[in-house]
């Protein structure tokens, strides 16, 4: 759809050029900025913090490991392999030079086993009657790989490729694609059925006649 829209815009270019003398350049419509912002630098573990209308002493900062040595951390886990999952952090600096140091090693974490990690930095400002109606949350996620004591930052793309690799598959047109493999979990329960889904496409037209299979294929 996007490509079609671009092609359409190109075809209409002369008309758009004529109109541009009448209409101001389009301004992108974007999402509002949060009053509490974390920036992720390409390297290192020190993240700049910006605050608007919030003072540094109102901010509660923490580091929460999401994945430790390749394994996703359970939601209620306090530690994994002796590594604390949650750790309070403090804002450093003052004024417009605030930052938070999210270096993974710290109190109780002298070293990390080899593997892939993700850690979430979370800044929370609690409600303040008459000033802040609800909690303000800001987050950033850092990815890295630990190898024999060396920590190497990863991008989202690198991290995702490592922990959720794509596998070959085929789409309904029998074209080769890349897919993710879903997980199966159990908690010992099976819920009652909530309803029947609506079919919006019949697969029959996508199947080529004459490819008969054995009855038990």
């Amino acid at each position, binding site marked *: 759809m996007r490509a079609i829209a671009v092609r359409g815009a190109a075809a209409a270019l002369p008309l758009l050029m004529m109109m541009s003398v009448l209409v101001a350049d389009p301004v992108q419509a974007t999402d509002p*900025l949060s009053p509490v912002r974390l920036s992720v630098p390409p390297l290192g573990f020190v993240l700049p913090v910006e605050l608007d209308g919030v003072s540094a002493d109102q901010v509660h900062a923490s580091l929460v490991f999401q994945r430790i040595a390749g394994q996703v951390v359970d939601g209620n886990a306090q530690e994994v392999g002796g590594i604390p999952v949650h750790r309070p952090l403090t804002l450093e600096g003052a004024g417009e030079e605030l930052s938070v140091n999210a270096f993974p090693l710290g109190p109780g974490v002298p070293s990390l086993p080899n593997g892939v990690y993700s850690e979430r930095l979370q800044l929370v400002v609690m409600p303040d009657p008459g000033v802040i109606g609800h909690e303000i949350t800001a987050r950033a996620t850092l990815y890295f790989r630990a190898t024999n004591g060396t920590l190497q930052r990863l991008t989202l793309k690198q991290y995702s490729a490592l922990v959720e690799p794509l596998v070959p598959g085929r789409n309904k047109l029998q074209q080769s694609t890349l897919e993710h*493999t879903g997980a199966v979990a159990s908690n010992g329960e099976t819920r009652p059925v909530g309803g029947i889904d609506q079919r919006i496409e019949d697969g029959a037209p996508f*199947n080529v006649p004459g490819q008969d299979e054995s009855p038990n294929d």
Partner: protein
Amino acid sequence: MKTWPFLLAILASTLAGASAGADTRTYCYELVFKDDRFDCPLTGDAGVRRACQEDYYNWVNSPDGDYTHPVGGYLEIWDWDDSALSPDDYIGTWVIGGTGRRCVTFEWEGAAYANGESNPDLYVKWKSKVRGTPGGPAVQAVDLAGNEYGDVTWRAAHISDCLSGSNCDQPGYLLVTTDTTTERGGRVMALDSSQHMLQVYWSLLDGDQIDMGWPAAGSASIDRHYFEVDQTRADQAQSPAHELGHTLQKQLFGQDNLTNDCSLNGAGHSLTSTEFESCVTTEGWAGYVAAVSLWNPQTTGSAPSRFGVDFEDGTPIEAVCADNTAIEAQAVKGFWDLDDDPAEPVGAPAVNPDTNDSDTVFLAGLWANFANGTSNRENDENDVNGVNLKDYYQNNSALFAFPLDAKQSLLSHNCMGTMDPN
């Protein structure tokens, strides 16, 4: 409680299949994804339409945590075959109609995809695509080059030989994701947030498909059929819904641009920064769309918020009434007050209460009443303060059931009455 209607539906579909000369199969599954979105109502919160972090699961051999059903998601059902002999057969696509355990029914004997096989060996593929459950266009996740993402497959977990007349249950739960911090983890959350918006506004949106570019360097509405979600904002349920609010307004204007000048205090805007009225109104509208996609304005106690701002708080944000015309969050509150049922007393420095209660889809449709053009009260008004809340009211005043109530709720209750009339 829901067992009897379900059994009746199974019976009806079975009879319908039988009358067509083919036996049907019924296959049931339960699909969830890991969810850690915030600024989104949770189960039990007042006014919640469909909760984020729907339920906490303690799994065996999978990461525990909060998971949510991907309602409105596209699902393909396939027949597994020994790939050395023949490729798998595509049976069809379904839209997940609700939460909990779901079922699909389809004919088998005689269908082209049966290919002579006695009974299918079934599995699911989750598509990176959602829509409102009643209908309307889909939102499709694409990378920034415009390529559609691949599927999530449970081929390895297929169930064998689904017999006619028996319950073919997929054991356990199918997890689309277990890690919210991966590309896939963000994608499914952003898509589900988009679905919340589609569920409310599906009847007004046009086209077959709106593309969601992910993961991007910022959340933005690019044109009337394409928006992007910031890599760091997939866990913000209101971010995709906000951008779709811009999409909706663009579609109702029949164009790819909006009058939206947010340059008064440099680039960008926040809920409480001082901005031109076009920015306040356009961004406030998108903020309201996001709020109403997640919270039901008809419910007493429903109190949407984002970044700490309570949109149900009846006290204007700025102490000097006229200063609120420059505040985006105040415009969010104005649209919310037009829509919500609970009346709200006057809050200083405003001078009127909020008593109006209009319909959500009706309020959105009113943008279509802006004429094309760059003059006052037209959709491309050539003025940094143009296309503002006053224009919205003036173009539609006669359409409200109680015009004075609407005027007071939108404008004077929120200190927006001094917006530029030109």
